[in-house]
């Protein structure tokens, strides 16, 4: 399972880079809705990265719940 999570992480990191590049492209061409949507996509990718890191045991749980 850890391998699957690792593959997912790599994919999401790649996607995030793509989204970040899209945000810059949207800003450069004044396509604000495009850029804004990619900010959202980037945040969603980050949220899934955080979830996978947690499932892999690399972050959390919170101190109170250890």
């Amino acid at each position, binding site marked *: 399972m850890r391998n699957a999570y690792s593959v997912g992480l790599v994919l999401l990191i790649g996607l995030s880079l793509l989204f970040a590049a899209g945000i810059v492209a949207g800003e450069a061409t004044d396509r604000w*809705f*495009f850029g804004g949507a990619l900010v959202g996509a980037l945040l969603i990718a980050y949220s899934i990265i955080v979830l996978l890191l947690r499932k892999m045991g690399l972050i959390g*749980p919170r101190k109170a719940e250890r």
Partner: protein
Amino acid sequence: MSVTSPEPRTGYGRLMTGVLRGTLKLDVLVNRIYPSDFNPLYYTGGLANLFLFVLVLSGIFLFFYYEASLGGAFASVQYLTERVPYGGIVRGIHRYAADGFIIAVLLHLLRNWFTDRYLFSRDNPWISGMFLLVFGGVIGFTGYQLVWDDRAQALTAMFLAMLRVLPGGEPLARVFVGGAGISDGTLVRILFLHIGPASALYVLLWWHYTRLRHPKIWPPAVWVLFCVGVVFLLAGVIPALSGRPAAPAAQPTAFPLDVFFLWPFWLMNWLGAPGVVVLLGLLTVAGFAIPYLGRRERPQEMDVRHAGVAQVIDGNCTGCELCYFDCPYNAIVMVPSPAPGLSRAAANRTLLAVVVESRCVECGICIGACPFEALELPKFLERDVKTRVLEAVRA
């Protein structure tokens, strides 16, 4: 005294027991996907708070550009959407965060309803929560009016029809529009009815939290990122746009519907203004009355609830504050100890726990929190609990 609660006899009781079991099963299911500290169902209140925060920030931005006049409202919103860099995105964020807020509030309401977290001393957050919901509905509706497009015009006409149904409704309608007919003053009033109740939400939130010691007011980072991301994504992919500009001669009969805020106006197709007013009134009264109606267990069936206000056994209290931190009702305060305790552990204490009787709900949480046997419920002693547990285990 009976340890187990009797099976509910009424249809309502059986229904609520069914939904309680369903809610708990859903919890278990979600906990298989997410770690339990990431379970969004545990943070519905925090999610509503997150969306409210997004609404306030985006609303402040929109306010800088908005012009509250018949001639300027539509144009200012169009300028913001089309000409201001990322203005359309911020408008979309404001619109979708409002939907997110209502969804989170409704989930929060249903979850607390289905899990009985509105009974007894919890009626306080329930009532304040109902005010939050009603205020949220009003704010959302007035937000659609502020754009002053054909939908806003139709909504205003329908709302005035609903106001006129009420006793004394005609003067109310005149106060709402600011005279005999719609004018610049109408939009100023609507703007006030949008921002005034929005500011009041934070006062209501203070009331909502006032009896809770550890409210979960913010979701975990994973959900903050996800929810803000979804709002941005929707704002970019399905932009919030205006309809046609409102015109005095136009009488629009159809408009795009937001199911979370505008459903009463959709129902007017069948119920008419009087029917919708009666329905909204009934729903509001029923919502506020839920803590006082349809209790599944009567007090005498829940004898543990009548165990008496918790009492501090002065000689045993060490002033460790465990009960103070565990009491969810703020019913225990720590005061400077007037004298040392009697037990060895309590000999050097500096603080003493005191129970605020008006706040104690006799739940017994403090008894479990105290390792020094310094608290007791007078009619439900710890040794009796142990005896009953042992009897239950043996049986």
